[in-house]
């Protein structure tokens, strides 16, 4: 998934590059990493010029692209019953998928959500592919993004392997269960449940709080036995802050549920991993985001194997999606230098609400 981790963990380098390019010479080199991290998302510099304009234009093209893509699908759906999708050349769809995923990747990273959570409802609602194949591709998109971000997260210490492994193991078991159920249930039932879940995720994004550095007075016995703790370098204060976790048994149960939902809907689970790690277990926000990526990469693997083994991953759908999302994510990270993160987040919430309603209505047979 273009994941919370990718957002948070790419920020320092990206914002450093952004600052070097767009800020006055005297301010850029002296600004501390923490200062740049704190200020850039909310600052739009007048010197940004043409590149910023292009990025903004690209961003606002997304809704138009989605609507344009929805039109042929709708028109075709309303067309002949015998060969509903034969009117459009075969290559139009993978190309359109690549373009849409490119735009989704652009907004997923700066909004701090995973690509999978946008991919499945949008592609499942507006493209002519069966939901089975969309969910298979969604899992691959989520897994690929998490894998790509993994090495730097681990090397920088933004992800903690000892925190991630037990949770990933639990989530990988339940994600297989989710995948099995997803392929066994009728598509309209899964689509309806997906629509409700996507609307729930949008609600979570609107209401969820985050704690940069949660207070954990006492680690629980299980986390102590497993040695789950670390030292977080706070760039703002320049201090090394020790962290520990609590409520580990509750966290394991919650990751069982999260893994199941990820496998069932193919949406990945960054949207749930980070709040669970941060708010429930008390993991510092950036370590939670990085470790979430590691959990996702392992948990999605087990479900992806199930989809692949069942023949539910078509390369013609999955590969353009992965490539488009990865390319868009690289551009999307630069968006933080020209647009407020809150603006992009609101756009993503609006898209999720629209896609969630569309998915729900399609599942209920009201808006086919």
């Amino acid at each position, binding site marked *: 998934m273009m994941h919370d981790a990718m957002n948070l963990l790419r920020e320092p380098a990206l914002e450093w590059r952004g600052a070097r390019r767009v800020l006055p010479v005297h301010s850029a080199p002296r600004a501390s990493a923490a200062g740049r991290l704190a200020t850039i998302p909310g600052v739009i510099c007048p010197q940004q010029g043409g590149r910023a304009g292009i990025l903004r234009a690209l961003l606002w093209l997304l809704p138009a692209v989605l609507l344009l893509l929805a039109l042929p699908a709708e028109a075709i759906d309303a067309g002949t019953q015998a060969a509903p999708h*034969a009117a459009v050349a075969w290559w139009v769809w993978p190309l359109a998928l690549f373009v849409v995923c490119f735009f989704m990747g652009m907004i997923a990273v700066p909004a701090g959500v995973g690509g999978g959570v946008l991919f499945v409802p949008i592609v499942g609602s507006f493209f002519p592919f069966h939901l089975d194949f969309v969910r298979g591709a969604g899992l691959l998109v989520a897994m*690929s993004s998490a894998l790509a971000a993994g090495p730097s997260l681990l090397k920088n210490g933004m992800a903690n*392997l000892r925190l991630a492994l037990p949770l990933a*193991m639990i989530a990988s078991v339940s994600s297989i269960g989710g995948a099995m159920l997803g392929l066994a249930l009728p598509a309209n039932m899964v689509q309806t449940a997906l629509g409700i879940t996507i609307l729930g995720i949008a609600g979570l994004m609107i209401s969820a709080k985050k704690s940069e550095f949660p207070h954990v007075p006492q680690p629980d016995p299980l986390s102590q036995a497993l040695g789950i703790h670390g030292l977080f370098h706070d760039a703002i204060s320049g201090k090394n802050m020790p962290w520990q976790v609590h409520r580990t048994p509750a966290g394991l149960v919650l990751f069982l549920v999260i893994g199941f939902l990820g496998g069932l809907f193919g949406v990945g689970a960054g949207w749930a991993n980070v709040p669970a790690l941060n708010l429930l277990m008390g993991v510092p926000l950036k370590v939670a985001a990085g470790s979430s990526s590691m959990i996702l990469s*392992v948990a999605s693997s087990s479900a*992806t194997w199930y989809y692949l*083994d069942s023949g539910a991953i078509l390369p013609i759908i999955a*590969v353009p999606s992965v490539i488009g999302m990865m390319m868009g994510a690289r551009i999307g990270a630069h968006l933080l230098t020209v647009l407020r993160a809150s603006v992009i987040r609101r756009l993503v919430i609006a898209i999720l609400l629209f896609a969630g309603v569309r998915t729900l209505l399609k599942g209920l047979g009201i808006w086919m």
Partner: protein
Amino acid sequence: MENGGQPEQLRYAAVLHWTTLAGFIALVITFAAYMLGWLPARVPLERLPQLWGLSTEEYLKATNTPTGWSWLFTMNQGDSAGQIGIAILSGCSIACILVIMPIYARLRNYAYLAICFLAVAVLAASAAGVFTRH
């Protein structure tokens, strides 16, 4: 962050980097070969718009596509070759966990050794098709 310096974490990162890179390269090359017709497609590309709206079960029946690992034996066909990159990416986590197990064994950290063993067992069982109905 001190955990970035833990030996198992660094080894995991190194293996993850190379396996992911290999997976992406395989994904792009095989897909290009599939799309450009360098490898013939078992299911003609022109037919796909009539098939990708079917459920997995219906699609497999309509195209007589084998499931499981049988794609390995038809790698000369574009649609089967496209699966190799996906399989490599899906297998990255197994490789990464396997290489850190000796470190936990050396550290006598049996709790994490057991967790790694269970994680590999789950992933390998899923990859082997233990949970799949064929």
